[in-house]
């Protein structure tokens, strides 16, 4: 079978419904044959980075493997940021990059780049197909690796001659991979020890991350919290893994988490981490993080355990399997004192904002009110607006929140929203953006329009690279080096219109609700340019490297 046809057969076998690809010399044969595969939708981004984030956004909301394709050399290097973004957030993707002919590799041929070399540290695994007969095994392995264990992106670097080679080997039913055995079943002894420790704990806290979303066990998190009567805080990646409307919810923890989540973690005697990895934005100063706690860590990736924080009871395995074993062993306990302490903190330090004028937090609150009874997916770019979205939108279900957590990639939101909309055509998909970030992949508005993917973008336009400006204000004597954008920002309404989409501007608080309503009611992609208070800050805030209970702006 011809290489390109074999790839298409592999995509079908893996139930791929859509690929996000951009052409180039090394991909002509593959795209030639993909043109006939009517059952695989092809979406053409306007920049390969956009295509990569689309595949990522598609994967985040659908749970399926996202597929991006880029040509050799510059096409492939344009994908790098998207691959690194997916890698940091453990998102399953397969990226196929064209490559020069096998006989030219190493010659500095036109549009040659060592993509397996470049992507080695930012992929779960990668392959260079050097022998056509290896292609079937590689295709099947790539999808298997991407979606199993701790998910992640896999790159297949595909020399153009492989795509036209006649391949005798058939697609295997399963990959061989003798060195790859992700552990799903937890050690039952460890689960028992964990249950004992939780039952003994007086002030436990569940700290829940993106692993719970990948493992699809948010229902078990709720069961566990209710059965054991344990408060729950989530990371940025874990938003939606536990309903924020639940009385046991502490909302998000960490640098811009709620004061009560951070206080609870600082005072807990038993921290139960589930699918979370203790990164620096969560722990703050490590030596003062959860100082009195025994730490239990459920994770599928053994390297996450005791990497940043010493763990007392590691439980390596799939969170679903582990929690199913754990929950029956939990005893109900009132934990009256603990909950009354937490309620006191909630009362004293609510998430709040002050001041008149058009506050960005208000926009998010109103957006939530208007969309909470609709199927809604919230995507974000990176910056203050992202944190306000995390803080002031209320998440109750998994896979409704799409944001670049680990890498913090500006320019992620719009293309990710397009991918999300492709996966969930019946959802209202809203990208919450900053005026800086939106300019990083603004060309994808064309892709949204061309593919009838009616994503809405709310630009919280503060005229600054706001998150950086906030740090400059607080820690660098208000010296706003290279962060003011106002004077040079384009007119986002006209930009949207030039792309053939709708642009709406809101400049006054009293027009916010009408603007949001109009945006939601408008067909097709929309930019809603909301000119918010320029120097609003995200609070509370743990200064970098501080202990997490020492927050600025607690009320």
């Amino acid at each position, binding site marked *: 079978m011809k290489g390109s046809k074999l790839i298409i057969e592999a995509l079908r076998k893996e139930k791929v419904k859509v690929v996000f690809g951009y052409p180039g010399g090394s991909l002509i044969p593959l795209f030639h044959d993909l043109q006939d595969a009517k059952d695989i939708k092809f979406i053409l981004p306007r920049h390969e980075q956009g295509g990569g984030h689309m595949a990522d956004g598609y994967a985040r909301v659908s749970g399926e493997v996202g597929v991006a394709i880029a040509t050799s050399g510059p096409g492939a290097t344009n994908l790098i940021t998207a691959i690194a973004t997916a890698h940091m957030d453990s998102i399953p993707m397969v990226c196929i990059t064209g490559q020069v002919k096998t006989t030219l590799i190493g010659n500095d041929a036109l549009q040659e780049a060592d993509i*397996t*070399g470049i992507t*080695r*540290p930012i992929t*779960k*695994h*990668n392959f*260079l197909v*050097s022998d056509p007969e290896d292609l079937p095994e590689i295709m099947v392995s790539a999808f298997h*690796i991407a979606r199993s264990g701790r998910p992640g992106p896999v790159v297949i670097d595909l020399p153009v001659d492989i795509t036209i080679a006649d391949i005798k080997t058939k697609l295997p039913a399963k990959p061989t*991979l*003798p*060195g*790859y055995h992700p552990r799903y079943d937890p050690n039952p002894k460890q689960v028992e020890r964990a249950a004992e420790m939780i039952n003994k704990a007086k002030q436990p806290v569940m700290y829940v991350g993106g692993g719970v979303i990948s493992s699809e066990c948010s229902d078990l998190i709720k069961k566990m919290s209710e059965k054991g009567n344990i408060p729950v805080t989530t990371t940025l990646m874990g938003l939606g893994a536990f309903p924020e409307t639940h009385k046991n919810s502490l909302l998000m923890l960490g640098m811009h988490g709620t004061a009560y989540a951070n206080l609870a973690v600082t005072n807990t005697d038993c921290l139960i981490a589930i699918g979370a990895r203790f990164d620096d934005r969560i722990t703050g100063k490590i030596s003062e993080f959860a100082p009195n706690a025994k730490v239990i860590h459920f994770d599928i*990736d*053994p*390297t996450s*355990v*005791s*990497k940043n924080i*010493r763990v007392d009871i590691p439980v390596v395995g799939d969170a679903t399997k582990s929690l199913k074993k754990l929950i029956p062993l939990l005893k109900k306990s009132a934990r009256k004192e603990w909950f009354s302490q937490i309620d006191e903190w909630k009362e004293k330090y609510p998430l709040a904002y002050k001041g008149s004028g058009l506050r960005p937090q208000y926009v998010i609150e109103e957006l939530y009110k208007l969309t909470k009874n609709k199927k809604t997916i919230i995507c974000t770019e990176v910056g203050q607006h992202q944190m306000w979205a995390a803080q002031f939108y209320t998440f109750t279900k998994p896979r409704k929140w799409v944001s670049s957590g680990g890498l913090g990639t500006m320019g992620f939101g719009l293309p990710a929203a397009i991918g999300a909309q492709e996966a969930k055509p019946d959802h209202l998909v809203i990208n919450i953006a900053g005026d800086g970030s939106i300019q990083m992949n603004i060309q994808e508005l064309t892709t949204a329009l061309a593919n009838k993917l009616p994503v809405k973008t709310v630009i919280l336009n503060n005229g600054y690279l706001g998150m950086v400006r906030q740090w400059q204000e607080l820690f660098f004597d208000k010296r706003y080096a290279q962060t003011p954008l106002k004077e040079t920002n384009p007119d986002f309404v006209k930009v949207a219109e030039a792309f053939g989409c709708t642009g709406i501007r809101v400049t006054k608080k009293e027009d916010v609700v009408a603007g949001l309503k109009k945006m939601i009611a408008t067909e097709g992609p929309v930019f809603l340019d909301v000119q918010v208070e320029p120097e609003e800050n995200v609070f509370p805030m743990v200064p970098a490297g501080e202990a997490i209970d020492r927050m600025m702006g607690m009320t």
Partner: protein
Amino acid sequence: MRHIISALVENKPGALARIVGLFSARGFNIESLAVGETENSEVSRLTIIVGGDEAILEQVRKQLGKVIDVLKVQDISDDSFVERDLMLLKVSAKAGKRPEIIEIANVFRAKVVDLGEKTIMFELTGPEEKINAFINLMRPYGIKELARTGRIAVLRS
């Protein structure tokens, strides 16, 4: 503390680069690394000497295990094993000094593998202390060139 990690790795392109890249990206400190085929031509054995405390070593072991081409990882430091290092050492040896140099070499069972007008080259295998001792004794004569394979190690039965 120094640890000896022995890993079996599939002979796939990029496998070694992936492991070396992992060590540099995570800031692990490799003292020595030796690679070669095993009895199975599709599998190589990597012997890595790495320094660090127990927490770092735990990460090293786990990170290596996570590499998809890695089949098996063992920290053999606490077990009984045989270790060897191979060295080629060229030392300056004027006519008058030759007998004493060769005498020292004999004590170490170093083999003469090349004899030039002004130099002698020795081949020596053994555990690290032996190799280091030999190097120290050769130093005063003037070491011209030296190459070592890095340590390899296999568990005793």
